[in-house]
């Protein structure tokens, strides 16, 4: 089975935040919750690089390991999802995540965190596909429609690649070969090396 992966080509990312807005608009994510972010290093200096980061859907994901209520699970295609009805908002996944992916909307009890929200790879949640509940809790389910996640599909420079890991790797390898520069598949070793 295909193994879904993200790859952000830092040579191509232009810090336009198109992925961020596409994600929020498409999944109706509340303001303040960033399933995806663009990080810019060395802003305004030679060597400035930008990088779009969301949940990498790691193999052997640390968030799954630390979750005390087993709210986070991994599908066969590698997509890591959270069951918001099970999640208690403890925040352990955020502490375990190397990518800062888990997000917590403010809950209504003592300002405690609500259920964790994160990138779903546009694959919805555990509820019935395209159901009202799934859409409300998690947003779109584009994977079930046979589409790539919104962020990657809207990326103007094709910096953000998403889909079958081996195809993504091929596309990237081809680019690196043409460029003649080093391989900088950022985050891959951290996210996928254990697989």
């Amino acid at each position: 089975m295909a193994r879904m992966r993200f790859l952000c080509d830092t040579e191509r990312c232009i810090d336009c935040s198109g992925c961020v807005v596409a994600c929020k608009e498409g999944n109706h994510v509340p303001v303040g919750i960033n399933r995806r972010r663009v990080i810019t290093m060395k802003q305004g200096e030679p060597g400035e690089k930008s990088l779009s980061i969301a949940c990498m859907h790691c193999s052997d994901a640390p968030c799954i390991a630390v979750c005390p209520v087993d709210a986070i699970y991994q599908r066969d295609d590698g997509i890591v999802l959270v069951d918001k009805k099970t999640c208690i908002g403890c925040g352990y996944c955020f502490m375990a995540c190397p990518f800062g992916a888990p997000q917590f909307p403010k809950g209504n009890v003592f300002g405690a965190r609500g259920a964790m929200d994160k990138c779903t790879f546009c694959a919805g949640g555990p509820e019935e596909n395209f159901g009202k509940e799934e859409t409300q809790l998690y947003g779109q389910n584009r994977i079930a429609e046979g589409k790539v996640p919104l962020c990657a599909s809207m990326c103007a420079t094709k910096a953000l690649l998403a889909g079958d890991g081996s195809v993504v790797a091929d596309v990237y390898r081809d680019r690196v070969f043409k460029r003649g520069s080093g391989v900088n598949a950022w985050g891959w070793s951290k996210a996928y090396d254990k697989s």
Partner: protein
Amino acid sequence: MTNSLNDIRHAKSMIFIGSNATEAHPVSMQHILHAKEVNNAPLIVVDPRFTKLAAKATEYVRIRPGTDCAFMMGLINEIIANGWEDKEFIRTRVAGYEEMVEVAKHYTPEVVENITGIPAKQTRRVADILAKSRPTSLTWCMGGTQHHIGSSITRSFCILQLVLGNMGKSGGGTNIFRGHDNVQGATDMCVLADNLPGYYGLAEGSWKHWCRVWDVDYDSIASRFASKEWMESKGFSLARWYEGVLGEEKIESPSPIKAMIQWGCGSNSNSQYNRVVKALNMLDLLVVIDPFPTIVAAVTKTDNIYLLPSASQYETSGSVTSTSRQIQWRFKVVDPVYDSKDDYEIMSLLVSKLGFADEFYKNIKEVPEDITREINKGTLTIGYNGQTPERIKAHMENWHTFDIDDLQAKGGPCDGDYYGMPWPCWTTEHPGTPILYDISKPVAKGGLPFRNRFGDVTTYVMTGREEGQLAAKGVCNPGSEVQGGYSEFKEVVPGTNWKTDLSQETIKNAINRGMAPFGNARARCVVWNFPDQVPIHREPLHSPRPDLVEKYPTYEDKANHFRVETRYKSEQNPDLVKQYPYVLTTGRQVEHMGGGAETRSSKYLSELQPEMYVEINPRLANDLGIRKGDMVIVESPEGAKITVKAFITPRVDEKTIFLPFHFAGTLMGESYLKDYPEGHAPYVLGDPGNTVTNYGYDIITQIQATKDGLCKVTRA
């Protein structure tokens, strides 16, 4: 642009000057980065600011704002001095070259260093890169045009490309990225003060041409003007319309401006914005037609304003022209929501009320298809006649058949067409012209020579030399009946030329003979009807270099420049820099667009860019005692002030400060939050950057000089 966004994929080098494509045109970046990666094309970025585009550059050139022309002439000089110019191209297709070379000689790398601040070594290196990696795609945007010598600057860009022989070549060309999806279309329809649609000008013949197209009586149109003189003279331009209201400057107009319709216009993109606001309040009638209540709706204190909610692009349909001169069809997704109406309906209601609907809609029964057909009928100058609504829609339905590299359909219903039939598309069989001035293809297949527009022979005032303006012998498109240069086509149908022959027989005749309707001439380096026949550097009106003001002074004052007296020499004060020591430049953010009425009303975009700010170099900030997040006051020589947050960043250098111009909602210390219609205030308010942009207008086009003013910065 002479080429297309996709064609940049073939560039062997790229130079961007006064363009921040990553923020203003992010979608173009895939082609730019493709050329950089696949062709290993050097990417040269010339900008006062280390922009996000500069982050992708292989060569970043920091230039002093307003000195682009000097740098270009320096490159030209360096290229010629080394014998790197394309001699054959110049011999056969360029006019006024010798005169230009004489002028360029002054701009040695050392002189360029003194003017622009670019090290002589770097000028030499850039010239070397351009010479050795041809063709070069040259791109400029507002950073190149918004100066009082903007027209000279843009001409110097073109001359560089002529000298390098990069015109009419795939991967070369002068590629001016246009802003929104239909800015090119709006330009072609000449939503301007000095032109009828299709760049026909304002002469009697032009009016008569369009009256024939519209099928209305010329006299009835003429009777609507105060006199024939005013009918044929330029109006107020967008940059200075408010002078026609304020009456503070000397104006040449039969009457002050009393009423105004702002149709999809972010007024805070006007410089000296506080004066614009004053004018808005003095109007008898102001109508704002926009999907969002723009800042105009809030800043007006009088009861003179009507807000008409218009539909967005998703709620209407019609043809639009992209930056690559491609015409595309936009389909309606939903009907206009709430009380909004689409632009066609608003226009129709307005025209009916004004009582000339019959004449207005004489040819237009089916909206919007018939509008496109009327454009097809009349816009012959730039070849808008082959893109019928049917062809455009066919292109939209067959996207997949077009090649991403050369934009040509390979098979399918649109076989051979270039995507969007980029103008000129001379006939309904013509595939469109993907690259302007490309003589390697037959005209019928999308080739084109340079246009013959300025006579066949000219004697230059500068040198007294006489030169033929037609292309050299043997230089023409394949299959041309005349092997060499030829004049434009006229009198094929008696009494008309190719531009005014509505039967289009003249155009068909030319195409059948393998020739371009507009002739085959040379591109000229000398423009004898401009104040600077060859582009030269002139110091910005508000210059930070008093020593250079003497050496490169501005123009004489110009009376009746788009109806307003415009100061040049009397405005240029070498001592101004003592009071206003920092160069002020403005620009865009990727998150917001134009005046920002729409984007600042989007919660997600507002979250990403929630505040107006000023970019200050860390060194300057430390010298001024400004810390990150401090509020600072930026003051213009005109006395306007804005209070904004300091963003300390090495993007700008120590003498320059940068303002994004998308913000509005507060002005000179007053907030207009409460003045928006209830529930319609944008999420983000801020001082408009254009409040402090300086006086200064281009000598030819009157575009405002927002990129090279002066200012004072103090802690709030």
